């Protein structure tokens, strides 16, 4: 189960080379990412961890193709990223389900875009509904689902297109603690069953250790890679084990250093934390 040691024998799925990202608003420039170099291997579960404003979502958006780097290059699945595409399925914190479509229609959407035969779409949707325990919700609209259910649909919608990797932007951030743990276990099960590469962004330290093969800790502005921490624990991981707790301590001190820098900058210049908002405005 421990995949971290096998990394070297695997092929790279995502290569991030010297990536910088600068947001400018008026005369102010915010360096969101600086000299990011990272290789993520096929089948790997990588968590990008950092305080808010560290550019972790920006990095994910660069891989997704929503917002290209100012300089440097991102390669995914052997090609340079230029546009968003279904080979890099994205799961958002806010679910982003299409509210006018039922659960089944949401999952079928990407397949319909690909113009697959109706029968094939039906079969794929049914399989996913079953695998994600959504069968009884198939004709419901998203508004009638709980947060956990919505996120299952969002994951199924991405899996329907069978992408080699899933990008997840704080996907369980809006869930309550118990649902979050259920969804984390569900995700690990999916990861093993579907053999996807997962790049998962979070600010949750425990979550990162619970899930990741490697935790990439980022610095606060400019966003750089502070440290990469491999998690060499067997799954399912026991959050109360000494190894888990010592890792948690290690990561907490790393993240807290950045959090303090964030706090100090906030005190000096309140409201300067604009990168996330700006990004939303600039991303297409």
């Amino acid at each position, binding site marked *: 189960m421990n995949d971290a040691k096998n990394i070297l024998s695997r092929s790279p799925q995502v290569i991030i080379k010297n990536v910088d990202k600068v947001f400018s608003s008026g005369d102010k420039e915010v360096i969101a990412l600086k000299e990011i170099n990272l290789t993520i291997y096929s089948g790997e579960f990588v968590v990008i961890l950092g305080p808010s404003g560290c550019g972790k979502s920006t990095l994910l958006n660069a891989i997704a193709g929503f917002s290209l780097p100012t300089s440097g290059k991102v390669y995914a699945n052997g090609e340079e990223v230029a546009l968003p*595409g279904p080979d890099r399925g994205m799961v958002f914190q806010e679910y982003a389900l299409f509210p006018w479509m039922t659960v089944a229609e949401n999952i079928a959407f990407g397949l319909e875009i690909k113009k697959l035969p109706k029968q094939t779409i039906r079969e794929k949707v049914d399989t996913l509904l079953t695998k994600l325990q959504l069968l009884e919700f198939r004709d419901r609209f998203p508004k009638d689902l709980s947060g956990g259910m919505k996120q299952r649909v969002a994951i199924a919608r991405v899996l329907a297109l069978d992408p080699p990797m899933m990008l997840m932007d704080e996907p369980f951030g809006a869930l309550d603690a118990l649902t979050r743990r259920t969804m984390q276990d569900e995700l690990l099960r999916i990861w093993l069953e579907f053999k996807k590469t997962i790049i998962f962004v979070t600010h949750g330290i425990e979550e990162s250790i619970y899930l990741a093969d490697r935790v990439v800790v980022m610095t606060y502005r400019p966003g750089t890679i502070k440290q990469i921490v491999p998690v060499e624990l067997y799954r399912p991981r026991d959050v109360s084990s000494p190894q888990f707790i010592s890792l948690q301590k290690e990561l907490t001190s790393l993240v807290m250093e950045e959090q303090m820098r964030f706090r100090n900058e906030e005190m000096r210049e309140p409201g300067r934390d604009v990168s996330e908002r700006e990004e939303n405005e600039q991303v297409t």
Partner: protein
Amino acid sequence: MKNRPSFLTKLLYAILLPVFLLALWETLARQGIISPHILPAPSRVFFRWIDYARPHEPYDAGKTNFIAWFFSGELPHDALASSMRVLGGFAIGAIPALVLGLLMGASTFIYRLFNPLIQILRPIPPIAYIPLAILWFGLGNPPAFFLISLGAFFPVLMNTISGVRHVDRLLIRAARNLGANGHTLFLRIILPAAMPYILTGLRVGVGVAFIVVIVAEMIAVNSGLGYRILEAREFLWSDKIIAGMITIGLLGLTIDTAMSRINHHLLRWHSGHE
């Protein structure tokens, strides 16, 4: 259960005030305290309304079928004439507004091109176009259609534009991530996402069209409910004026209820709906 009034109790509350006012009105009119030319008794209005609505030829099975006969009175003809004008004018105004609104919402270039002109024209009430409409189109249906379509145009346009501009960027990102682009993105994501706004625009547009049709009929046409109540004034038939007004109210209510039902069905996915 004690705190929740039964249907009958609620009905009683609902009709209490109207019944009291009607009784008061009837009494005042019968006692001659108010001149019947100013405010005829509700009973007179009611009988006038029946007279306005009923067929005036005796039923002859050989000449015409029952349904045609039943609706051969003056009121059904007027109501139909007004409805057709609303429908026609609304279609003429709403369809281009919808298309232009989608384009303006989706393209900044088109928005910048059209917006100043629209901002100048929009505050002019459609009724202010009456003199020009008569000069351009003469009397009859054409100026009426013109005015009604003008009334429907702007609400539909403005709501469609903001509908498209308010589409959640996240949904667009998600759709692009799933492989949608170009017209698929537009038809399957932007259009349905903008639908709540568009439907609001259509509903407001029908409402304005209905106001304008009454005014247009008072001035430019000689049929329809608006024409009929103005005609009644010339004969000092205040009972018929009120009967006509009630008909206008009922027709308006019917149109709005129908629109609301359609909205409700189309927006059953929307979180505001049950």
